[in-house]
């Protein structure tokens, strides 16, 4: 029994069976198959809840180890664990609908998250400054396209020359859109192929 559970084939078999149930449920409407597909979806939901516990244990282990060893920035690990503990206790004792729990979430988590999101613009400038350097023909074309896109949208572009807007939109709607569509088609085909390879046990690292 333990040999079967440890075998390489078992996870691939589970993956293949669940995938086939989901695929056939989309194409063939049989009540029994439909109920089987719904059940497998429920299983996925239950597994995700169980893995949340696995993740929480891994997180606790990692931070406790760091605190015990007094590694660099260990104080932040204390803060992380304290926050998890307080949120957990508040959620369990008062319920996630309670005002105290919501206050905690809305006034500590959300502002922090918004502050981090707001910082993205600075990262965008830093990355653009680093990335858009005319090193070769391709990067020079990229910079020219970027300048045209900027002049298309910036009010000053229209003031300088009315032709920036049509050129900018042509670049976006014709050149960029066609290139992106080619990538999307390739990705779609690649996705289906990767799924089939995983079902056949040919995708490295997935059940192997």
């Amino acid at each position: 029994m333990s040999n079967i559970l440890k075998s390489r084939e078992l996870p691939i078999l589970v993956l293949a069976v669940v995938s086939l149930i989901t695929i056939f449920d989309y194409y063939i409407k049989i009540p029994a198959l439909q109920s089987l597909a719904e059940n497998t979806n429920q299983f996925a939901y239950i597994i995700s809840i169980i893995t949340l516990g696995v993740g929480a244990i891994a997180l606790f282990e990692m931070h406790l180890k760091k605190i015990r060893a007094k590694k660099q920035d260990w104080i932040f690990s204390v803060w992380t664990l304290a926050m998890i503990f307080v949120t957990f206790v508040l959620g369990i004792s008062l319920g996630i609908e309670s005002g105290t729990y919501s206050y905690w979430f809305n006034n500590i988590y959300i502002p922090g998250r918004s502050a981090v999101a707001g910082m993205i613009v600075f990262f965008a400038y830093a990355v653009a400054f680093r990335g858009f350097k005319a090193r070769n023909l391709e990067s020079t074309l990229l910079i020219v396209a970027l300048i045209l896109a900027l002049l298309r949208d910036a009010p000053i572009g229209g003031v300088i020359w009315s032709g920036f807007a049509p050129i900018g939109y042509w670049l976006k709607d014709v050149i960029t859109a066609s290139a992106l569509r080619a990538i999307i088609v390739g990705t779609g085909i690649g996705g289906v192929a990767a799924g089939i390879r995983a079902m056949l046990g040919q995708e490295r690292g997935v059940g192997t």
Partner: protein
Amino acid sequence: MNNMFYKIVTFGFLILFFVLILFNIQRGKEGFIPKIRKIAPLEAINEAIGRAAEMNRPVHGAAGVYPINSQWGGLTLVGMSILNYVARLSARYNARAFFTNMESINHPALLEAVRSGYVAEGRPELFKEDTVQFVIQDKVDAMAYGAALGTIFDRERPAVNIMVGGWEYETLMVIQAAHRAGAVTIGGAIGVWRLPDFVAGADYVLLGEELMVAGAYVAKDPVSLCSIQSQDWIKFIVLGLSALGFILNLAGVHVLTDFLTM
């Protein structure tokens, strides 16, 4: 055209895809080795991990922010295939590697993908408890994950940052944090969303389909390489359909266009 006809045709395509892949796998088993063009970012992974080992600095790998049971979970699975390869190379070159994750449902699968990489190289002892780190669970977005990676990179100073799978708004934060730490970033994106971020910030980018074939490409065995060839055949069919649709449209017949845009 009714929905039933559409489903029959797409199902037919799926079966065709299955048959082509099985056919090519059989050819691979018989020893046929197809010619596959070199994918620079995947070749660069080898070099970058070797460099990390020489510098005695760690390698970081992440399989993106999407849960494996979501619509974009396929990307995460493909990302894990690449991380399995990264783990193998890290074990081979004796480079310390750490892998981060922000979705609890991905954690057991990522643990297994990485652990099996070390085992495959005969170095299971290099796989430590903290080799795969569950950083955070964020149901709103991945901002906290991005911020956490910034701090982790400042502390660990990785020499290589491998970002595969699917990414969101935090991409720029992670790329810039890796740059600040002096790491080479090898990333992967599948089109519209994060492609510009990776093109502007990463040193090597796996574009769309390249990300999808990475797992099979790095395996380098004839069976995996042959399975990639099936995709090219399907692409030729799609190209043929596109050309046919274009010609039919010019002739005023819109049957194929209507069908493909259903």
